[in-house]
């Protein structure tokens, strides 16, 4: 009996996290269209509902009512499973992210390792979708996207190792608590190169501009999901935005102090700003990163594929390795107020 109650409690917590997350994913599409519209000196959607706020629902309804075309000779089972393989890791990684003090679904001791494992699983949706579509463009796009994601995962892993060294624990709540303090206490300052590398790798992992050559709309026409339509395509879309929010959430947690306010611990301003709940600070930081994502999309030209691979292997990995050595010297000699 007690176990059933526990399961119900877990389910309740999950629903409380998932529903706002899915709404956030849906409205991310709206935010992107609006912000890119303003960057390009035009308004985004503003017809459906006041200021276009009902646009995501209109889009969802449209996609749900469209036909899902199963191409000839496509591998049926894999074709249908691929979107699920894409969205499962993007959502499952949220189980260990704390959005506030103690507000985490599963407080596991190997949280960061679990998140990295889920990020590694994200490549399967892409590869299986590309292969199951039985189309040259899809397969080529899938392999290129897969190789790109996999190359930037290394740089991301090294950046995470740097954060681990600074915080001393794989438990994500403890990583945030190690940054307790005002804004200069957070990890972005001593780990600045790793922060930048993590952020660039994050943008590359989610296949967003300037690294979106594998789904480059004008080159290989949407790449691995070219044969998808209707709700199956929508799930890929949702998975991409869920990944974006996940990467932003991780960046906020690992480098920008999670749920702490920038004035936490200061004599006068501290208590005033601490009245704002930690969850709001976390959401603000995530929103900042999401705005950066959209900003990059509206501003930068696209990298060529060989430039992308060169950046991932020849630039980001050496930078991270060098900074890891520097950081370990910092830690062993006890330099600075952070270690």
């Amino acid at each position: 009996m007690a176990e059933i109650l526990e399961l119900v409690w877990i389910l309740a917590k999950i629903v409380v996290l998932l529903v706002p997350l899915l709404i956030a994913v849906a409205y991310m599409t709206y935010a992107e269209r609006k912000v890119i519209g303003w960057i390009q000196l035009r308004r985004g959607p503003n017809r459906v509902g006041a200021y276009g706020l009902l646009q995501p629902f209109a889009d969802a309804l449209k996609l749900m009512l469209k036909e899902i075309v199963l191409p000839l000779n496509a591998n049926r089972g894999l074709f249908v499973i691929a979107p699920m393989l894409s969205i499962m890791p993007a959502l499952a990684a949220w189980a260990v992210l704390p959005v506030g003090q103690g507000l985490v679904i599963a407080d596991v001791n190997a949280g960061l390792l679990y998140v990295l494992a889920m990020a590694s699983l994200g490549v399967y949706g892409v590869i299986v979708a590309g292969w199951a579509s039985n189309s040259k463009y899809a397969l080529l796009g899938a392999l290129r996207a897969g190789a790109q994601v996999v190359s930037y995962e290394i740089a991301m892993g090294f950046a995470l190792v740097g954060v681990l060294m600074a915080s001393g624990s794989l438990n994500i709540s403890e990583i945030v608590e190690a940054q307790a303090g005002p804004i200069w206490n957070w990890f972005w300052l001593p780990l600045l190169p790793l922060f930048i590398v993590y952020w660039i790798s994050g943008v590359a992992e989610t296949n967003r501009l300037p690294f979106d050559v594998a789904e480059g709309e004008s080159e290989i026409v949407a790449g691995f999901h070219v044969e998808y339509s209707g709700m199956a395509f929508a799930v890929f879309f949702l998975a991409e935005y869920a990944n974006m929010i996940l990467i932003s959430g991780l960046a906020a947690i690992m480098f920008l102090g999670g749920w702490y306010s920038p004035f936490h611990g200061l004599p006068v301003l501290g208590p005033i700003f601490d009245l704002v709940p930690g969850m709001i600070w976390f959401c603000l930081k995530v929103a900042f990163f999401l705005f950066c994502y959209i900003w990059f999309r509206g501003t930068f030209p696209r990298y060529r594929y060989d430039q992308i691979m060169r950046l991932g292997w020849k630039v980001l990995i050496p930078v991270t390795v060098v900074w890891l050595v520097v950081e370990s010297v910092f830690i062993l000699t006890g330099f600075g107020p952070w270690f």
Partner: protein
Amino acid sequence: MVESYLPILVFIVLAVGLGVLLPVLGFILGPRRPDDEKLSPYECGFEAFEDSRMKFDVRYYLVAILFIIFDLEIAFLFPWAIVLDKVGLFGFGAMALFVGILLVGFLYEWKKGALEWE
């Protein structure tokens, strides 16, 4: 300790369920009118030129192998990062040797041009 993983299992099951539910909803709610032209693979309006299997490009294989090696390196770095203060200088030296050996391999692949072209 392992009890704290139960919510993760429930979450994964829920995420899988969501990922299956949405396309199924799409199948149910959407029309099904298969048509020869709709079902053929996308080729910008042309007939497909040849079989959709492309020539085996060994660069993808190389990238995947290099990724395995570095992923293992990261997996070894994880426990070290946590116990750095406890294993002290000796542990640092051991890991420095480990990373150094792998750096030799990385340098070899850089110089050989395995990181080019892609």
